[in-house]
């Protein structure tokens, strides 16, 4: 008999709400723990995210976050991912953990989620194209997965790989980028508490266009570092390749930290347009997370290691 995963039965929201229910055991509306059609659920209560907002930031809407995307696997237009990702099937989902680990395994996403606590994380997302959003993610620290994976001491970097399914991802039929999409982090960046693997946003399972069912979120780096729909996590001893730096090494570096002093031939990195706003904002060093992450890069020439 085919094994049926609980993720095929229980939606992420139900799962989340159940956790919340257990945690607070206070009055949470019973209605919200039932599975409603997606649109009905997310729009209501955003107050739980307000306390995590930094001064001057406002949440972008669910609509903005889910219809304005860069996910070239579904096409290069901003609305292509929401229009052409309907047939992408993310259930069931398993992830390969390989390379320099005690025991390489393929693990069901379900089994990973059993071992972690889903948290709310409101982060700014700064795209290298000089636009930005504020997104209420749900997810868990990447460090939790790394600890489960038990890497060897020789593992210094992690490489991530996006799923390759040209039948379900129309953009992969054209060699716009070299598929599958790959990205990487240095181990200390990966272990940093701000780095999360996200499973949802606005209390809703990640939609396909946002990188369902599991994506990386590294808020102090340009958006393309936050790789989507991850199927493999590889522990390696050398700086791994990454898709955009491979394609245009002079434009995109391995680190790709948000840095208003590093010049890009196409977009100004000094300012950005927050989606929904008219006037540009100045771009903050490390996307405003300088206090938390600048120690990672002490003594490094960030103009050289961009």
């Amino acid at each position: 008999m085919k094994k049926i995963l609980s993720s095929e039965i229980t939606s992420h929201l139900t799962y989340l709400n159940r956790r919340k229910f257990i945690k607070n055991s206070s009055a949470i509306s019973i209605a919200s723990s039932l599975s409603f059609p997606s649109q009905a659920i997310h729009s209501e209560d955003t107050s739980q995210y307000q306390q995590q907002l930094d001064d001057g930031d406002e949440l972008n809407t669910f609509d903005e976050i889910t219809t304005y995307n860069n996910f070239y696997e579904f096409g290069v237009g901003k609305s292509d991912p929401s229009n052409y990702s309907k047939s992408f099937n993310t259930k069931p989902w398993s992830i390969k953990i390989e390379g320099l680990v005690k025991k390489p395994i393929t693990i069901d996403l379900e089994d990973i989620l059993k071992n972690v606590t889903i948290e709310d994380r409101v982060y700014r997302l700064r795209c290298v194209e000089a636009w930005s959003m504020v997104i209420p993610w749900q997810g868990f620290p990447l460090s939790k997965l790394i600890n489960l994976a038990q890497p060897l001491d020789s593992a210094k970097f992690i490489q991530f790989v996006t799923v390759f399914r040209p039948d379900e991802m129309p953009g992969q039929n054209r060699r716009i980028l070299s598929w599958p999409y790959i990205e990487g982090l240095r181990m200390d960046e990966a272990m940093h508490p701000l780095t999360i693997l996200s499973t949802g946003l606005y209390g809703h399972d990640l939609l396909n266009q946002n990188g369902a069912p599991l994506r990386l979120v590294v808020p102090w780096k340009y958006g393309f570092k936050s790789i989507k729909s991850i199927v493999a996590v590889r522990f390696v001893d050398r700086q791994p390749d990454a898709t955009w730096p491979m394609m245009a090494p002079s434009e995109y570096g391995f680190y790709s930290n948000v840095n208003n002093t590093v010049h890009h031939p196409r977009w100004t990195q000094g300012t950005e347009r927050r989606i929904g706003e008219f006037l540009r904002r100045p771009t903050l060093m490390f996307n405003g997370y300088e206090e938390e992450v600048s120690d990672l890069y002490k003594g490094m020439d960030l103009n050289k290691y961009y």
Partner: protein
Amino acid sequence: MLSSQLVKKNKLTILMILLLPSFIWVGMFINGSLGINPIDILMDKLGEMSLRLLILVLIISSLSEFVFFRSLINLRRLIGLIAFYYLFLHLICYIFLDHFFNLSFILKDIIKRPFITFGFLGFVLLFPLVFTSTNNMIKKLTFRIWKKIHYLIYVVILLGVLHFYLLTKADKTEPLIYFGIVLILFALRIYKIFFIRQVVQR
């Protein structure tokens, strides 16, 4: 044969049709139906329209070599001016909507980013063509000199295509298609200059 009567009579209609997209896009921009990042979209649409019209100007010139299409030459100036109109709106969009008159920033942007340098240069080089577009000016300058000035259109179009190519992040198909069309149109002219002239000389 396409009569020049017919072409001239419909100039106003053609003008209205070609201006219509700009009204629609600006209207959509104002009522918020131009998508999640409307400034970028408006700017892209205006710029793209301008480039397409400039290429159309070259196509009209080539077509008018054929007797059947000779009368189309009456539309060339009109379409060239509309192309300038779109390019002007494109620039206004960049200065006002994208950077809100932050002129010192814009100046730096023009110098620092090659695609903006080329785009801006193309816009500047279109000015002499606009100023010398009236019948009076043609008379004043003599047709020979006027024609020399208007060879600038080739430079402008190449700069426009280059601008589009450089600003495109990954999928360069569209700018390359434009480049291909422009190359074919250039080749036709070179063929005409060298080959046809030799035939006549013989």
